[in-house]
């Protein structure tokens, strides 16, 4: 599983150029017991784009992200990642393949400080063994400091210097979301999955967050797949949108096109099926 890990830095990056297919989902179905969460969905994500996944509540959006990063295993269908068909994959393998994500309900490590939370994102890239770790000296210390430097860059980028040593449990919600983004960025992912990054934020916070997402996409070239309810945000940020309803795909295309799709309008307005 370590084949993709590059200990030096830009780990897991495939060398694909912008516009090539990074990930493709083919005919994926997922059910819990008898309940179908996702039915026969196919779409792709291109390298370098911002891909939005939208749909009403319970449409299967989060389940879709969970399938992509290996937390759920679909009963049917395949996922092709960087041109390779992926069989069953554990979440930590997905992480080492360069897939990072944030969560709908903030999933920060509550007992740790902001700095430590972001440092956890560097875990896969640190490889000094146990005994050096015990000594915290020599190579282990150098490694720690080298990664601290990276983390400080991300802290500067997201403007969270002031809360560096605050336990994340004490932070307001908007900042927690930002720390979570920082943590995902620290993994230097090739594909970043954002699950409702702006839920519960006020307008100003949303604007900040939108700016960060665009910057990440443009400055680092990170491919982003995001779930969002705020249509304005979706339309502004995304290159392409896939729309789910009741676990099925009902539309896929550029924002303007999706916006005028009758099925989408029906789904959001609640026309009976």
């Amino acid at each position, binding site marked *: 599983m370590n084949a993709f890990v590059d200990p030096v830095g830009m780990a897991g990056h495939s060398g694909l150029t912008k516009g090539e297919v990074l990930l493709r989902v083919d005919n994926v179905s997922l059910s*819990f*017991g008898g309940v179908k969460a996702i039915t026969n969905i196919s779409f792709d994500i291109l390298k370098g784009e911002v891909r939005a996944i939208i749909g009403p509540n319970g449409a299967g959006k*989060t389940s879709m992200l*969970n399938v992509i990063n290996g*937390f759920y295993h679909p009963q049917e269908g395949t996922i092709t990642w960087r041109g390779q068909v992926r069989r069953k994959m554990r979440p930590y393998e997905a992480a080492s393949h360069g897939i990072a994500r944030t*969560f*709908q*309900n903030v*999933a920060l490590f509550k007992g740790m400080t902001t700095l430590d939370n972001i440092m956890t994102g560097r875990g896969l890239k640190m490889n000094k063994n146990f005994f050096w770790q015990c000594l915290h000296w020599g190579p282990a210390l150098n490694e720690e400091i080298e990664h601290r430097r990276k983390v400080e860059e991300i802290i500067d980028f997201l403007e969270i210097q002031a809360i560096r040593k605050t336990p994340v449990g004490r932070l307001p919600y908007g900042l927690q979301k930002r720390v979570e983004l920082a943590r995902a960025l620290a993994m230097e992912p090739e594909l970043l999955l954002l699950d409702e990054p702006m839920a519960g934020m006020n307008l100003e916070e949303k604007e900040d967050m939108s700016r960060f997402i665009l910057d990440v996409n443009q400055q680092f070239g990170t491919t982003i797949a995001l779930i969002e309810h705020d249509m304005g945000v979706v339309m502004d940020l995304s290159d392409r949108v896939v729309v789910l309803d009741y676990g099925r795909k009902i539309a896929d295309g550029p924002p303007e096109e999706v916006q005028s799709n009758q099925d989408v309008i029906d789904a959001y307005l609640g026309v009976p099926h």
Partner: protein
Amino acid sequence: MDMLYNILIDPFVQMVDAPDFLIQVVWEGFVAGVLYALIALGFVLIYKASGVFNFAQGIMVVFAGLSLVGLHEKGVPAWLALILAIGIMAILAVCIEKFVMRPLVGQPDIILLMATIGMTYFLIGLGEVIFGGEPKQMITSELGLPTGSTAFEMGERGLVILQHIDIAAAVIALLMVGGLAVFFNRTRIGRALRAVADDHTAALSVGISLNQIWAIVWFAAGIVALATGIMWGARSDVSFALEIVALKALPVLILGGFTSIPGAIIGGLIIGIGEKIGEIYWGSLVGGGIESWLAYVIALIFLLFRPQGLFGEKIIERI
């Protein structure tokens, strides 16, 4: 080869050879299981209503038994001592609610668990200060409980002995479970209790007094403890060593699930019968005395295959 025979064949040969003995073993396991189940029931009641894993249930058994016997020793008639013992458990319940549960509401599980361990320490000290450390005889006959035994002849040398007190224990356990089931399902307090179990905040918002409910639950657990104390006390005696036996309820709980009353009963019976059969037919292969851990290993193996316990629902992890 011999070893395989001893493990795989011989125990069953023994069982078939002496069916009367097998019946006796199962019966003893059944009675022990009923008593484990009673202790477990006390745990379940409290866990259901307040999410507290009440480690003090064991010492509550001792405390209840000691109060009963101690009062009788002081010259109180048995029936009055029983009523007073129930009263003491009520006072204890109110005190626990007021001084431990209420200030700790909303704390994580482990903190509440620790608080009950603290209570265990306190009650051991208190019990010894009041009643002294020496073991006491349970006042079985004074309470009108049967003491004799009935023997059934089976075949030539076969003999099954049933202690009346054990039968009484089984009957009382059944009655208590039945009573609790009625209490939970048919009474207003019972329904409120279930509401609390589902969601504390929601229960509060519809006007249920958590404090009152908790006091009632601890009291109910106290009565279960008293019944357990009487029954187990009649089997050995009432002493602080009994507290250790209560640890046996833990594997029962993980087998049956922390929140299921039928789970506690069935788990208790599985553990009770399983460990007796294991000890008697297989224990001698490793020198005996395996009862001290067999129950835990049974529970552990079981959990590996069904992490949610016997009656729990399948856990779907979400994020």
